[in-house]
């Protein structure tokens, strides 16, 4: 019976979302309480569910080996689900305030809650098929958020997003077909399911992996399939923050992890020798992201390109196929989520309080919003990977993984990109703090508390993760220990 519990975090948000759409709220307080209950409740549910032992798993319905909606909780899923539900809470607070500036809040929050359910679905999927379904749903459910402004620009970006996503989905489908024709099984197992087969057609497998990597890579903003991400910046800031931090791009990464380590398995992949092109793409992703970020004037776009680059790090951690690299990759998955969401919140806060969007406008804003910009500085430094922040911790492992593969080249790329990262983030800090006219009366213009508190808390998390990474690292190590 407790296995049924598993369904709640996945489907409850969907019900909440529908309810939210139906109920007419008397006042803002009611509304906010409802949203709060939904999202915080979900986190509690997840935590409560994880208490049970053994971890629940459930075949929701099963037609055959293939059509089998199967939920299964494992550590990887726990990691992802906790990350998502936690960050969702922060975003919720943030958007409650932020969205007062935007219209159509009702639709926004409906889909906002709905997406949480979808993400939970992805996290707890027990096989590729289930994951694929939720993955597609994610595309559809995030689309209204992306085009929230409904301007021509937004619609164009939304179209781009959809087209890219569906191309990706097609690739994934192709990969699934190829894979299924070899394995007849798509369920996730800790060391991959291919290893259990007696004989298999390596060419088809390689093709399947490659195609799926590209397919999921579209969501993970793999170059050259990334350009939807910068354009999706037209969305309201909380959406961008979520898109970048957890919801979309990370689900792409998560799916790639699932495919790489839970379907194929590190040994098989390592033996297939088809990694050259994937590595090239990943490296291009890293470098391109940071280089292009340097050229962006718009703060959000800059961060968007930065995301591309940082996702490249995570992908690198995945494709290097060794323990250290994967630890680094997974840790960076978390770190980047926390850092990037903070950065986006801050950019959003700047926009919210002052209406400024690009770098040259924010001269001296550090004097008006010292706390906010201090948080920005800390997050930036962390993203660059300067110790003792968490960004460094993950890069440390990534680099070790890179060297262990005897490919010092990766490390050089990592560091080069870190340098570029400094190049595009520090000028913002410098402009904010050290430039601009000094005004006689510096009145503080910190954003409202609902925005400020998430920012400060997340910054605290960044610092804590940097100083005491071992709590999380321990958990990641145990995941990695199981799958490599």
């Amino acid at each position: 019976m407790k296995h049924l519990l598993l369904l709640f975090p996945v489907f409850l948000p969907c019900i909440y979302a529908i309810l939210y759409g139906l109920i007419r709220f008397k006042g803002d307080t009611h509304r906010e309480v409802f949203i709060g209950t939904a999202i915080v409740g979900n986190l509690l549910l997840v935590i409560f569910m994880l208490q049970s032992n053994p971890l629940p798993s459930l075949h929701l319905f099963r037609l055959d080996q293939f059509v089998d909606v199967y939920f299964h909780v494992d550590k990887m899923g726990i990691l992802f689900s906790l990350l998502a539900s936690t960050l969702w809470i922060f975003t919720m607070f943030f958007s409650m305030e932020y969205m007062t500036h935007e219209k159509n809040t009702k639709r926004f929050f409906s889909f906002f809650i709905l997406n949480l359910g979808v993400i939970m679905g992805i996290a707890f999927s027990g096989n590729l098929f289930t994951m694929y379904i939720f993955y597609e749903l994610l595309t559809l459910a995030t689309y209204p958020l992306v085009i929230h402004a409904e301007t021509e620009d937004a619609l164009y970006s939304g179209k781009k997003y959809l087209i890219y996503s569906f191309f990706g989905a097609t690739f994934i489908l192709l990969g699934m077909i190829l894979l299924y024709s070899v394995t007849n099984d798509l369920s996730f197992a800790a060391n991959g399911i291919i290893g259990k087969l007696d004989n298999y057609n390596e060419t088809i497998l390689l093709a399947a992996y490659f195609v799926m990597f590209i397919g999921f890579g579209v969501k993970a903003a793999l170059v050259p399939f990334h350009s939807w991400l910068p354009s999706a910046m037209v969305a309201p800031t909380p959406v961008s923050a979520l898109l970048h931090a957890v919801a979309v791009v990370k689900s792409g990464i998560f799916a790639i992890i699932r495919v790489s380590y839970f379907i194929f398995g590190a040994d098989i992949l390592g033996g297939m020798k088809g990694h050259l092109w994937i590595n090239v793409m990943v490296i291009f992703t890293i470098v391109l992201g940071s280089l292009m970020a340097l050229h962006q004037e718009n703060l959000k776009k800059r961060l968007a390109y930065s995301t591309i680059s940082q996702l490249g790090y995570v992908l690198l951690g995945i494709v290097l196929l060794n323990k250290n690299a994967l630890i680094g990759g997974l840790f960076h998955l978390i770190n980047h989520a926390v850092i990037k969401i903070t950065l986006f919140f801050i950019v959003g806060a700047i926009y919210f309080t002052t209406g400024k969007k690009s770098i040259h406008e924010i001269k001296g804003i550090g004097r008006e919003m010292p706390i906010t910009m201090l948080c920005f500085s800390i997050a930036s430094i962390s993203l660059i990977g300067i110790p003792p922040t968490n960004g460094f911790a993950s890069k440390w492992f990534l680099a070790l993984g890179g060297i262990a593969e005897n490919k010092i080249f990766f490390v050089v790329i990592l560091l080069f990109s870190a340098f570029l990262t400094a190049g595009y983030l520090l000028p913002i800090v410098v402009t904010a703090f050290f430039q601009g006219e000094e005004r006689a009366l510096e009145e503080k213009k910190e954003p409202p508390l609902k925005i400020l508190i998430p920012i400060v808390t997340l910054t605290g998390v960044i610092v804590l993760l940097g100083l005491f990474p071992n709590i999380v690292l321990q958990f990641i190590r145990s995941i990695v220990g199981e799958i490599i």
Partner: protein
Amino acid sequence: MISLAMAKSFPLLILLILLISAFIMPLVKNNRVVKGISLGTMMMAAVLSVITMIYVVKNGSFVYRIGHWDAPWGIEFYISPMEAAIGVLFTWVAGLILWYSLYSLEKEIPSEKLPFYYLLVNVLIGALLGIVYSNDIFNCFVFVEISTLASCGIVVIKDKKENIKAALKYLILSCLGSGLFLMGIAFLYSITGNLNMTFIYKEVAAAQYVYPNVILISVVLFTIGLGVKSAMFPLHTWLPDAHSSAPSVSSALLSSLVLKGFVILLIKILFRALGFTLVKELPILDLILILGSLGMIMGSVFAILQKEIKRVIAYSSVAQVGYIFFGIGLASELGVAVALYHVFGHAVTKAMLFLTVGAMIETTGKKKIEDFKGIGKEMPITLGLFTLGALSMVGIPILPGFVSKWNLALASISAGKPILVAIILISSILNALYYFPVVIHGFFGEENLKDRVYKSKQKPVKEMLPVICLSVAVLFVGLISEPLIQLFSLGLK
């Protein structure tokens, strides 16, 4: 159980009910009564077909002699699970479409023609079921002709210029098709001396070495003849005109059922009369495969170029029929079973699409795609249902469209032609290209939604209920995909 034992005679009973009741209708003055008769008979047929289905699944295939003459002289019905399932599909979908027509048909055709319309529909469905059930080729031919006439009838009933034009084109091409079909029968008869498929199967095994060319020619004639009627790719030219100009109820019937009847007949001839082993050796399946693939791609390409929404959906039918031929052409049991499954999936989905589009055209009075921007606000339920259908067509998991694509892909890999997977995927992308813009512009867009009033044009839920039922059917067909495919591969043996 007595009722189940009686089920053997049900197929004939269904036919009789439909055909006889059809000719009562013109005699009745009151349109409401006509509607009642039509729907009532269809429901009866539906119930009976379900009982037959249950019987067949329990007891296996059976042969029913009409007039108690033994084959090869007498005509017999051969009911295997496949036929029974298709029968259920036809009656139920037709029933739902008729249900929908109760509320909408009068807005499209003059009310004095209503009895004739229902007459034609009953005849059409009866003839289609006849094609499906009958085990006698010539009997099938007669039913084919009847259904052709009836379907031309339900196209032309709107009495507009383009309807007549379209119907004439349809008629002439159909007639060519039936001519070839009859010729095919002649060839087959000349070497086997039989018209009963079971007997042909027995004879042809011996005859194939003596008259290889004759078999080839007859197979080509069958394929092309039936191909014209079921809109195989380059022979589809009649379809967009006919389907788009007809009343939407007719379009739904034509697209979802009529095309499928001929496909089923082709499958029966190829795999039952001639037999799997024989047909596998013939190059005809490659031809079908090529034409099917072409249809999958070109149908979608043409659909993208269209401006009228009904034409888009009509061309989409061409593409979807391409899938069916693709499955047949794979020359594997799975392929054919999936083709049959796609008959199922496409029937329910396409019916739903045509009906929703019909509703949209009915309330707005517009036809062009660009006129439907922002329609999602005015008719959220309708467009929502349309979206479901579109998703199925594009291939979103669980929905039938996905299941058939998936299995077709697997079948093509196991048939040693993995490159065909690319065709399937390209075709689904193309599908997305013409379905999604409708949905997106319907639901979103600031400019699109300006001045639209929420639910202002929504039809009452009562009237949309049949479509909702169809949407449930879509989901249902998606969910029971596995048993269905198994059932079909069982029926082929």
